[in-house]
């Protein structure tokens, strides 16, 4: 019944090395994936929207719809 002496030292260090490397790589991968699937398209969407945005035209349309309290539609 002579078993090999089990590992007595460095257990936490070994576990930390293993799990920390996995944790860091997954977190960094998640951050990179989020950047290129969410934030970059969002920035592009906003840029495109404001390229063709006419603020005065939008304001007039909103005024006619009657949502403002300070400026009523031109008919009244």
């Amino acid at each position: 019944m002579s078993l090999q002496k089990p590992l007595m030292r460095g257990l936490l260090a070994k576990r930390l090395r293993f799990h920390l490397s996995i944790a860091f790589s997954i977190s960094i991968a998640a951050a990179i994936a989020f950047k290129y699937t969410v934030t970059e398209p969002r920035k592009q969407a906003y840029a495109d929207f404001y390229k063709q945005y006419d603020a005065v035209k939008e304001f007039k349309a909103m005024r006619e719809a009657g949502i403002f309290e300070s400026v009523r539609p031109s008919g009244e």
Partner: protein
Amino acid sequence: MLATRALSLIGKRAISTSVCVRGGHGVAKVEDYTLPAYFDRRENPLPDICYVQDLSADQKSLKEKEKGSWAALSNEEKIALYRISFKQSFAEMNQGSSEWKSVVGGIFFFVGFTGLVVLWQRKYVYGPVPHTFDPEYKEKELQRMLDMRINPVEGFSAKWDYENKQWKK
């Protein structure tokens, strides 16, 4: 108490029928739960007392043999000594069971039952919803949201085609 404390320093056994002399007035019975107990716990590997308190004749002779050289003990004797001191080995105490299946089943059952209770409540306890849930009112809300250009870049109004007055395809 002093007598039991002194005795527990020498031996590893719990004194189960010890006598507490209190101030000359008589004896107080020592309750079981106040004495050191045996339990198999992974985080507490060496319990306070041995598992087997009352040794048989064989076990007593084995304990005498233990006082000599341990190399002289056979493997079966070493296992027998282990089983005197401990009830379950670490492998035995750590093994999983199928209890989780019953637990999950019970969870689902009670969640389902709660669903039935909620349905009954909705029908028999709660009153009618406010008028703001009427379809006509909801249409007016929707039109107002589009007029206000809610989320025009990526969200709500971005999906509405203002030229043709319909949702974008």
